């Protein structure tokens, strides 16, 4: 073989060259640093400046965190231990941990109740958020959860949330019977049936039957309150927002007009005004002595506020759909409800996910505004009872930093979930 090579002009390689590592300057960390940090002179200057800023930041913050005191009865005790050195006084978090989470009036022997409601929340939302992973049967628990959570957090007779739930079931049954004749009849008949049922059962006194110790709304507080408001308002405002968005597109002038006025009015008013209305003004309109829960009033206001925003986000999604989708659904003989549920909304909602999440995250953070109407949520607790106490007067950074961290973790989680969901639903572009 080899002698053939030697004599011919043509040439065939008979040994292959093994892979060689590239020169040091062209691979690995060195290459990365060169091309990303020091590629040009201005780039190098910026890199050095950034390094210097980072160093200053870290040298300030790191000792503050690392030297932090986690065990002290008060701020002055903290300062004594630190003895002039830099260091955070995180002892306030340890000492007031339960207050930060549950408020200062929730009975401490009942902390297990909101805690279990919190843990069950994950079981309840799992089949909604990860609908492909979890069995559909779990949705039954999701439907029961709101009533169970109410009972766990507020206590009282089990029959109260059971009747509230039964009202929905009865309303639905009446709706299902009447809807075959006409939608309007089913809709209003269902609502009327549920209201009548609630009115009758509301007059009954369940005291003593299947009781758990009752906790009044004004005794709720801390991050628990933010979570309650956030979860309830987000999950209510999405269906209301969808209804408003569809109503705004309706051919029926009265429905359209109501939706437009509602959306434009609510969007034009600051949330804090609505909260003051909930707190003070509503009381004038209600019959004296009527026990209309403050948290319920706040939930109604925040939900109205958020659903107006979500309605506009979803309207954007609806407008982004090509008209052909409506026509194709129509031409196949699907009725309005079917076309919306099966064709239009799945696509419109998918487009609207970033906007909805934006509203949801904003709404969740806005729940701290209730501290202004003297409810003791996380921020309310910090500003009120904790900072006002003689022991912890002046511990701003640690407390507010902690609040920021809690909210950041929750909101970042929501945002990451939404991005994952968008990738899951991305079917039209491979």
């Amino acid at each position, binding site marked *: 073989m080899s002698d053939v090579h030697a004599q011919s002009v043509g040439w065939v390689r008979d040994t292959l060259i093994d892979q060689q590592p590239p020169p040091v300057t062209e691979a690995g960390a060195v290459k990365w640093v060169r091309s990303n940090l020091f590629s040009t002179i201005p780039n190098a200057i910026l890199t050095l400046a950034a390094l210097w800023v980072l160093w200053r930041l870290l040298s300030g913050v790191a000792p503050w965190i690392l030297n932090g005191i986690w065990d002290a009865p008060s701020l002055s005790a903290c300062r004594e231990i630190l003895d002039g050195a830099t260091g955070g006084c995180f002892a306030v978090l340890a000492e007031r941990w339960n207050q930060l989470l549950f408020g200062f009036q929730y009975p401490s022997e009942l902390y297990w109740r909101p805690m279990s409601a919190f843990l069950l929340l994950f079981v309840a939302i799992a089949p909604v958020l990860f609908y492909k992973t979890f069995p559909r049967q779990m949705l039954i628990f999701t439907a029961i959860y709101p009533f169970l959570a109410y009972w766990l957090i507020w206590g009282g007779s089990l029959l109260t949330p059971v009747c509230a739930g039964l009202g929905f079931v009865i309303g639905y049954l009446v709706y299902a019977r009447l809807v075959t004749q006409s939608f309007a009849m089913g809709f209003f008949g269902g609502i009327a049936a549920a209201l009548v049922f609630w009115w009758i059962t509301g007059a009954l006194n369940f005291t003593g039957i299947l009781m758990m110790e009752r906790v009044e709304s004004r005794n709720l507080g801390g991050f628990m309150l933010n979570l309650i408001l956030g979860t309830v308002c987000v999950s209510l405002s999405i269906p209301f927002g969808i209804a408003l968005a569809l109503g705004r597109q309706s051919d029926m002038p009265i429905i359209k007009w109501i939706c437009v006025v509602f959306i434009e009015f609510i969007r034009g008013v600051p949330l804090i005004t609505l909260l003051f209305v909930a707190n003070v003004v509503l009381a004038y309109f209600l019959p004296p002595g009527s026990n209309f829960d403050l948290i319920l009033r706040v939930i109604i206001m925040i939900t109205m506020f958020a659903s107006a925003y979500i309605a506009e986000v979803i309207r954007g999604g609806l407008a982004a759909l*090509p008209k*052909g*989708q409506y*026509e*194709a*659904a*129509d*031409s*196949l*003989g*699907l*009725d*309005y409800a*079917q076309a919306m549920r*099966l*064709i239009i909304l*799945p*696509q419109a909602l*998918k487009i609207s996910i970033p906007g909805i999440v934006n509203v949801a995250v904003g709404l969740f953070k806005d729940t701290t505004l209730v501290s202004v109407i003297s409810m003791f949520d996380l921020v309310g607790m910090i500003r009120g009872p904790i900072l006002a106490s003689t022991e912890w007067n002046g511990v701003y950074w640690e407390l507010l930093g902690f609040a920021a961290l809690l909210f950041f973790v929750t909101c970042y989680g929501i945002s990451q979930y939404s991005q994952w969901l968008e990738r899951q*639903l991305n*079917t*039209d*572009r*491979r």
Partner: protein
Amino acid sequence: MADTAVETPSPAKLEVSDEVAIQITNMNKWYGTFHVLRDIDLTVHRGERIVIAGPSGSGKSTLIRCINALEEHQRGRIEVDGTVLSSDIKNIDTIRSEVGMVFQHFNLFPHLTILENCTLAPIWVRKIPKHEAEKTAMHFLEKVKIPEQADKYPGQLSGGQQQRVAIARSLCMRPRIMLFDEPTSALDPEMIKEVLDTMVELAEEGMTMICVTHEMGFARQVANRVIFMDQGQIVEQNEPEEFFNNPKNPRTQLFLSQILGH
């Protein structure tokens, strides 16, 4: 226009029954003050294959969109399969489920697989059990020659394939009448043939079809009647042979010379 030749029996062999499928009497439509359709009278018998031609803006698409009430007409009467089109929603939905429609831009549902696109309406409108609807869907997907794409999404298919799926989707409702609204106008030339082949096959099975198209080869081979529209009116209608070889109206002559003359 390229003559996308397809071998077919001559249109005369396909039977047309005496039964009336669509009866349009003195129908008028306005967009605002613009008079789009003027005094349309048209009777379509069961088994007829009608091609509607005409310059753009002549109201061809609007006419067939009135037949399944995607557009409202303001005056006159449309009767489909014995049901008079009124503003009653139940009435409209009944007609729509009997009349299949294929659009220029396919209008498949991008969030559903091909199979789901085909089974959705039978399951929800006809209340057919899911497995049965899937069997029907696969039958029609085989007929349009893309059963292997059943689990893909519309975005993964070519235009021609998407249009064939759209035809299959309509057929799954077992319609008695099919409307085609420029089904090949958004397609690349090499994909036009595969869609036309499917339509020819459908015609051979005796489907009542109304087709708005610029494919004159298709009209010549499949149609038993060609209708020419201009300015919202039916200007001329005739058997394809006569229509193409011996057009009477000067507008028709001009139109034909323009589209066939290059």
